[in-house]
């Protein structure tokens, strides 16, 4: 008996101990029981990733039959009798492949990340709520036409997502949920609007006023106006100018002047908001966020067919921001390309008649207003035209994973938008995204368009973020248009100055009519392109679209390549997308080498050595280049030394005029900006700073990368692309990838290497539309799937996959089929 009691006690201790041990988190590890469970835990992930050759899925949401063929690249081709069924199937398959991504990106926009990951996300959530995403979506949903095709497609897509969430087994729960100890939340229509809003705000935030005002506070307004100009000093517009060549429009830059103290307080307030937004939007601080696209007309293509290339440059993540798909509904839709996980439409892609791609216009989409409020701590009213107006107050509650209240904020809005406080100043922000009709109907219509004309007509109402849309069709028509909401400002019409918020006369008066959008159709030169540069030469269209534009290096390079090639092939297009040449290097290198500047015989030996090393470089960012390391090092020094008067304590958001402005300054060898304020007894000139930058750049490169003939100087070892998992877990990321890309190359990579070409596509609009494409990553969000990063090797080398897009499932080549799913009505 005693033996039995002892045995029972031991059993209880071991059994209960094992259960408690397996049920509780262990340090940073989630509970080990469910995690190690070989039927459903991490060990089962490879089983969840294994495709079934065929599968019949019966769900009550379907109205008709759907066949989905998943090809060997993991891309679904959805053939449906009814259009809404196609979106349901797409939602189901996207959720199957990307469920965690769907949830985390919409939670980030809604400001509810804390409910998934806990208090560590409180800061990010607070910024999202302050931006008013939730308010924006609530208002949008209140006004939406629920009978519209766009809304119904969103609804159908959501039904598909939720069907997967209900149907999936424990084994199929994504790894990230297991690590977080969480379960997927149901999907709602609002999530799609949150996603669109988030995308809009990421791309439509371009406030020129902050940098300019901050510069004025340091060096006075005349210099600030020249350093952050409304019009780019190098004109390579997307709407070709009459001379069809680069127009250099450098203007003299006044030397640093007396600080403008009056704007300092406003700048502090706006900068606080700006930095907060920057943290939320995760700007990389470089120009690798951008895009390229171009189209070639039949007269310049080797086959006589129109050609299109597009590669949007965004933050690179695993899984990717894009999900590739092909949707076919007889007589309604036959469209392929990339969708945003969370939205049912092909955003960039092609159909049987045309292809299209976007680059961000980067127009001035938001303005800041200095407001007067009734209480500097907790205002409830603001002053407008001599009277008090109520602020809209929203109480935002932040909850943890367990539902506990972490924080409660009151967020305030004027009629323009959210209002922030910094020091004693309250600043509100107007943004094109607020009140925009981001319903997605234009994306739906683009996919259905049968000609360039129809595409342009259907996309005319597209609002935010403004995009440079290129389109080419099988008839050989090519076009480009900057399409979106361009606010019309009162007075001089400029949005690059902080406005007085107490006057409604300073409010936007409307939007620019579409007939004034930068536009070109079938130009004589036979091609069109865009790369985030100022879209129209102000000598052709002086309307204000924005300020402080990206330097046009990529645009110049694209146009140089296209002008030099009168028989463009799809292979050329592919090659151009990863061309390692750089218009930036072509312009700056002569100054560094002393060809466009003075080469002094008595310069320090380091300067001669640096020049010799740079002189041996071909100016291309190839994997085995050595000069690129030194060039970038010298450019950093040159930038820092030239703009030393603009130094800010916050380096990431430091004031840095565009490099095209720096190039203009290099033409003025005695400008006061060359003087180094640290040396009070000497007045430096351009050539002094160039030499100092060469010497310091060489020192820096040697210290960082070792001897100049060592492997450390090879570009493949010196600069890397880094593609992080959404949770920034190194184990799930692809890090330290060697890329033949640099700042300003057509496939740009700079800084931390976390941004770049997120999708590359080339389309030939022949009798049959043929397309090639890739993106960095793969279709699946399951890290053990072969489709988690199977596109990555090709992306790194610039290779594109040939896309197979049969119009009927029966025509699908057997060797390209990985699995076949049939969806139908049932339980």
């Amino acid at each position, binding site marked *: 008996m005693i033996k039995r009691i002892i045995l029972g006690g031991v059993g209880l201790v071991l059994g209960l101990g094992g259960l408690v041990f397996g049920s509780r988190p262990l340090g940073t590890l989630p509970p080990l029981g469910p995690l*190690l469970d070989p039927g459903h835990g991490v060990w089962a992930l490879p*089983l969840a990733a294994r495709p079934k050759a065929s599968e019949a899925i019966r769900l009550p949401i379907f109205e008709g039959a759907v066949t989905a063929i998943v090809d060997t690249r993991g891309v679904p081709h959805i053939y449906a009798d009814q259009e809404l069924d196609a979106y349901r199937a797409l939602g189901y398959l996207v959720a199957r492949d990307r469920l965690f991504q769907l949830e985390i990106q919409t939670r980030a926009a809604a400001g509810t990340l804390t409910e998934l990951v806990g208090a560590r996300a409180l800061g990010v959530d607070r910024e999202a709520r302050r931006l008013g995403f939730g308010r924006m979506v609530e208002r949008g949903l209140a006004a939406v036409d629920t009978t519209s095709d766009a809304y119904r497609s969103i609804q159908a897509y959501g039904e598909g997502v939720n069907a997967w969430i209900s149907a999936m087994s424990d084994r199929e729960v994504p790894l990230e949920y297991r690590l977080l100890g969480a379960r997927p939340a149901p999907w709602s229509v609002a999530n799609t609007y949150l996603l669109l809003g988030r995308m809009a705000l990421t791309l439509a935030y371009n406030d020129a006023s902050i940098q300019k005002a901050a510069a004025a506070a340091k060096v006075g307004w005349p210099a600030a106006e020249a350093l952050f100009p409304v019009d780019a000093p190098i004109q390579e517009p997307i709407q070709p100018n009459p001379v069809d060549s680069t127009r250099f429009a450098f203007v003299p830059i006044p030397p640093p002047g007396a600080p403008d103290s009056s704007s300092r307080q406003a700048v502090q307030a706006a900068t606080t908001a700006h930095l907060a937004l920057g943290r939320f939007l995760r700007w990389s601080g470089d120009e690798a966020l951008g895009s390229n696209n171009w189209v070639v007309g039949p007269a310049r293509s080797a086959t006589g067919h129109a050609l299109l290339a597009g590669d949007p440059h965004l933050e690179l993540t695993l899984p990717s921001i894009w999900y590739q798909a092909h949707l076919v509904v007889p007589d309604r839709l036959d469209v392929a390309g990339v969708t945003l996980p969370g939205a049912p439409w092909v955003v960039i892609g092609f159909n049987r008649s045309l292809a299209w791609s976007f680059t961000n216009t980067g127009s001035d989409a938001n303005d800041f207003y200095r407001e007067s409020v009734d209480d500097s701590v907790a205002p409830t009213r603001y002053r407008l035209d001599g009277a008090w107006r109520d602020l809209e107050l929203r109480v935002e509650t932040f909850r943890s994973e367990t539902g506990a209240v972490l924080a409660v904020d009151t967020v305030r809005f004027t009629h323009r938008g959210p209002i922030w406080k910094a020091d004693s100043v309250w600043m509100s922000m107007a943004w094109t995204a607020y009140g925009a009709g981001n319903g997605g109907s234009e994306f739906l219509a683009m996919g259905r368009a049968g000609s360039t004309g129809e595409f342009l007509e259907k996309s005319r109402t597209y609002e935010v973020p403004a995009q440079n849309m290129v389109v080419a069709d099988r008839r050989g028509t090519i076009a480009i248009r900057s399409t979106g909401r361009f606010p019309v400002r009162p007075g001089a019409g400029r949005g690059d100055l902080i406005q007085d918020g107490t006057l409604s006369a300073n409010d936007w008066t409307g939007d620019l009519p579409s007939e004034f959008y930068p536009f070109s159709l079938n130009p004589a030169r036979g091609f069109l392109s865009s790369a985030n540069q100022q879209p129209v030469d102000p000598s052709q269209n002086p309307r204000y679209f924005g300020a402080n534009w990206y330097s046009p290096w990529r645009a110049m390079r694209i146009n140089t390549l296209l002008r030099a090639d009168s028989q463009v092939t799809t292979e050329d297009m592919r090659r151009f997308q990863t061309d390692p040449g750089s218009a930036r290097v072509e312009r700056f290198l002569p100054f560094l080498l002393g060809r466009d500047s003075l080469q002094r015989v008595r310069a320090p030996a380091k300067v001669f050595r640096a020049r010799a090393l740079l002189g041996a470089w071909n100016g291309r960012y190839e994997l085995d280049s050595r000069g690129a390391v030194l060039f970038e090092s010298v450019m950093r020094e040159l930038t820092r030394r030239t703009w030393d008067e603009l130094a800010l304590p916050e380096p990431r958001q430091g004031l840095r005029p565009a490099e095209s402005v720096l190039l203009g300054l290099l033409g003025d060898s005695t400008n006061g900006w060359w003087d180094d304020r640290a040396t009070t007894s000497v007045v430096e000139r351009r050539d002094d700073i160039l030499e100092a930058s060469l010497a310091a750049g060489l020192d820096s490169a040697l210290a960082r990368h070792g001897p100049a003939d060592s492997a450390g100087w090879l570009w493949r070892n010196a600069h890397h692309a880094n593609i992080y998992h959404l949770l920034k877990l190194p184990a799930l990321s692809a890090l330290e990838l060697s890329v033949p890309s640099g700042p300003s190359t057509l496939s740009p990579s700079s800084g931390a290497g976390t941004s770049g070409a997120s999708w590359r596509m080339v389309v030939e609009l022949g009798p049959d539309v043929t397309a090639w494409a890739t993106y960095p990553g793969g279709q699946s969000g399951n890290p053990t799937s072969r489709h988690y990063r199977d596109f990555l090797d090709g992306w790194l080398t610039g290779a594109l996959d040939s896309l197979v897009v049969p119009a009927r499932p029966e025509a699908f080549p057997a060797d390209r089929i990985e699995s076949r799913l049939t969806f139908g009505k049932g339980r």
Partner: protein
Amino acid sequence: MVLVYWMLVVANGVAFGTLAAGWYAVPVVGLVGALFAPRRSRPLLTVPAGCLLGWAGLLLRSARADGFPALVAMLGKLFPISPPVLAGATLGLALLLGLGAACLGVALRRPVSRDS
């Protein structure tokens, strides 16, 4: 022979139970396995071994999938312990739960007379 037989019965029960209900199936199946173990099956030995074997079978099933090498590589970076140790911990958990259940089950069994 009965030892092997009962160990395989428990292993199958644990494997299917885990697939159906999750890791809690291990102590449940182990307890049932110990309570109803045939004579001379030595449940204190066969039940924990069966639990271990059941989970080892499931692990082997995963190991045959294409993505297993990727999983092992990922786990090695994701957790502060190596994948073999993690696999050992997985089997150790099954063993621990099985042993606890076996002890309890044996203690709760109705005493059987040597003559019967």
